[in-house]
């Protein structure tokens, strides 16, 4: 098992280095192979780590909570690799070759940092891993070298770095809280912190937790520190948008959960839940309102991600084990659904050459497969059965209704419905509206395109994503369900 964990932590990095030197046509397949292998590795961990935590040296450690996030990240890594094979068009000539190399090396490096973050042992190393995700993804946002991309990259790098500055300060305060128990020199690993957390100074832990939520919340997209998110998601190349949305945001959520795990031991469950509740409700409210006024397709999905991060925060604030189970399932289901939706949008953008939803009409007519799959993935994102998000949101609401503050669950349902309205309105308008070529008075600014898929690889990546969502929704595999139970148990407040 240890060898597998080390391999998971190294393989994407090796792949990144190798793709820098290889021609793009080989890199494409290599990335698909490595991405799929890491996902298979994560699945193996699913059964291998049952009932125990595996540590490798003092640096790597895998428990059930890590495996949950590892599954989400590696699934998206594999799916994005398949999508990118069909999506990326490299212009001939040295410029195009350079772009392709940079893109694939960057993509693999980004995935490496995302895979490593749940594997490392300790708050300090976690911070380092998440900082690496920022710097790599900031360069990937800027890679298209347009004005919009440079603006989005600047906002992203400034805001995310500041957020991580705060997160680092929170990490140091957590260390400070521990010095009263362990003395001036100790190591910030999870087992040490969890063992001593009961005796930490509560005021210091309180401050560290709030700063941790604020700092990592900047990267997770919690309101009011989400402002970089729609820009970066809309200006980045689509495979990067999918990874940002489905993997990067939840990895930051993972960091918040690690702070949560310590804080509930020191402070009891009430304070950490209240903090997450405030951030979560604000996030959910703002995102569902913004969803009603978007024109840009990728921005629409970006705000949908903000909404789902709000759902995760509110779900954690309910605190009942069933709601936490739902939150962890939501992490995986959201990764699959958001990835699939971005793949579909990538296909539409390639076809129509614009992200502006007022100019796109008759999407399903032009793209019979990926268009239909896109509509399905948007329904999945809006928590329609039979998809996985239906199950996870159902469990969260169910857990919320058993909470004394069940009014929050009611607000939650209203806001999620509002978001559903915004998301489905715009998507059905662009995808299901009649084909502009068949209408006599076609609006003059809609774009007319030839019918046909952009690439079968894109369709394949979307089919895989939706199949996973149906599996999660219809029949949750028993091993996964046990894993989520154990992870929820790890997050519980001690008796």
């Amino acid at each position, binding site marked *: 098992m240890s060898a597998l964990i080390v391999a998971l932590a190294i393989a994407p990095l090796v792949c990144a280095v190798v793709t820098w030197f290889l021609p793009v046509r080989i890199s494409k397949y290599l990335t698909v192979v490595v991405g799929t292998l890491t996902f298979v590795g994560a699945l193996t961990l699913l059964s291998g780590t049952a009932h125990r935590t595996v540590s490798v040296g003092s640096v790597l450690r895998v428990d059930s909570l890590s495996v949950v996030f590892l599954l989400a990240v590696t699934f998206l890594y594999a799916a994005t690799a398949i999508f990118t094979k069909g999506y990326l068009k490299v212009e001939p000539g040295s410029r195009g070759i350079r772009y392709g190399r940079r893109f694939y090396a960057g993509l693999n490096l980004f995935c490496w940092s995302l895979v490593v973050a749940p594997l490392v042992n300790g708050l300090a190393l976690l911070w380092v891993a998440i900082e690496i995700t920022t*710097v790599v993804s900031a360069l990937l946002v800027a890679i298209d070298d347009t004005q919009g991309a440079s603006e989005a990259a600047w906002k992203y790098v400034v805001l995310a770095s500041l957020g991580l500055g705060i997160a680092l*300060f929170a990490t140091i305060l957590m*260390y400070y809280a521990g010095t009263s128990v362990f003395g001036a020199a100790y190591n910030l690993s999870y087992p040490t912190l969890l063992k001593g957390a009961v005796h930490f100074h509560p005021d210091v832990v309180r401050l560290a937790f709030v700063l941790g939520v604020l700092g990592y919340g900047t990267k997770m997209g919690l309101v009011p520190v989400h402002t970089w998110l729609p820009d970066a998601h809309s200006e980045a190349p689509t495979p990067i948008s999918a990874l940002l949305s489905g993997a990067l945001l939840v990895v930051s959520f993972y960091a918040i959960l690690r702070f949560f795990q310590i804080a509930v031991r020191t402070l009891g469950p009430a304070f950490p839940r209240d903090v997450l509740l405030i951030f979560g409700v604000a996030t959910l409210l703002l995102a569902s309102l913004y969803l009603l006024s*978007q024109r840009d397709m990728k921005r629409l999905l970006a705000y949908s991600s903000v909404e789902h991060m709000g759902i995760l925060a509110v779900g954690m604030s309910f605190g009942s084990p069933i709601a936490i189970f739902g939150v962890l399932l939501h992490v995986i289901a959201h990764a699959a659904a958001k990835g699939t939706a971005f793949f579909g949008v990538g296909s539409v953008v390639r076809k129509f050459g614009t992200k502006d939803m007022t100019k796109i009409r008759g999407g399903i007519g032009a793209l019979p497969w990926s268009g239909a799959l896109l509509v399905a993935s948007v329904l999945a994102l809006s928590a329609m059965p039979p998809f996985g998000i239906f199950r996870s949101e159902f469990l969260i609401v169910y857990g919320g209704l058993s909470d004394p503050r069940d009014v929050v669950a009611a607000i939650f349902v209203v806001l999620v419905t509002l978001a559903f309205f915004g998301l489905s309105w715009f998507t059905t308008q662009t995808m299901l509206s009649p084909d502009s070529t068949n209408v006599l008075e076609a609006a003059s600014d809609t774009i007319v395109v030839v019918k046909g898929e952009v690439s079968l690889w894109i369709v394949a990546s979307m089919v895989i994503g939706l199949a996973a969502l149906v599996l999660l929704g219809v029949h949750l595999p028993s091993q996964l369900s046990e894993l989520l139970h154990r992870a929820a148990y790890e997050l519980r407040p001690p008796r």
Partner: protein
Amino acid sequence: MYHVPSTYQGVTAGMAVLVLLSEFAMLRAPLLRSQVRLYAFQSLVVSGLAAFVAASKHIDELYVLAGLSLMLKVILVPGLVLRLLRDADTDLAGSSVIGTASAILIAIGVSAFGFFAIGSLHVSSVSLPTSALAIACAVVLVAFVLIILRTDVVSQAIGFFSLENGVSVASLVVASGLPLIVDVAFLFDLLVAVVVFGVIMRVHHMRNETLSTTELDRLRG
């Protein structure tokens, strides 16, 4: 009976105050060049602090950290930013949303807030100087003021780097016992972050032919 601070506490607090004062000076500095030089000075103080903590607590690894941060933050990064300024050769004066006097007033306000916020935790420790932690918190908050009020990429980047200096001060006084591997990882990470800032600053300058951020308003909604 008064509590007499030890020499160690006195010196660390004094150096932390120097870091805070240079942060204020950055806020006041009108020219971008002088801002970069102040950052170099501030980093020098932080490196000195690292060396002092290493000497008085006999943590040899911190000498490595002090040396590395001297090379990177005092020489390399300011050098690179100054070169970018020479190449850009436009808008050498920094830009600010409000006047210097008001900016300083706000900064005094937030640093007092930071100081009392840490003070209200009522934690006292024999070996660790809490006052230096409070000052580090003030440095972080003033760096935020700097970033919010300035509207050019150089000031914003320097603001972020000096925020990191503030966090470094906190980690030196509070977490000097962290294992070396973590310290080196932090430093490596910061180096990478600085490089990325540099790259994106260059991209911004090439795309927009200015260092100002006032035109970055196309993406909204």
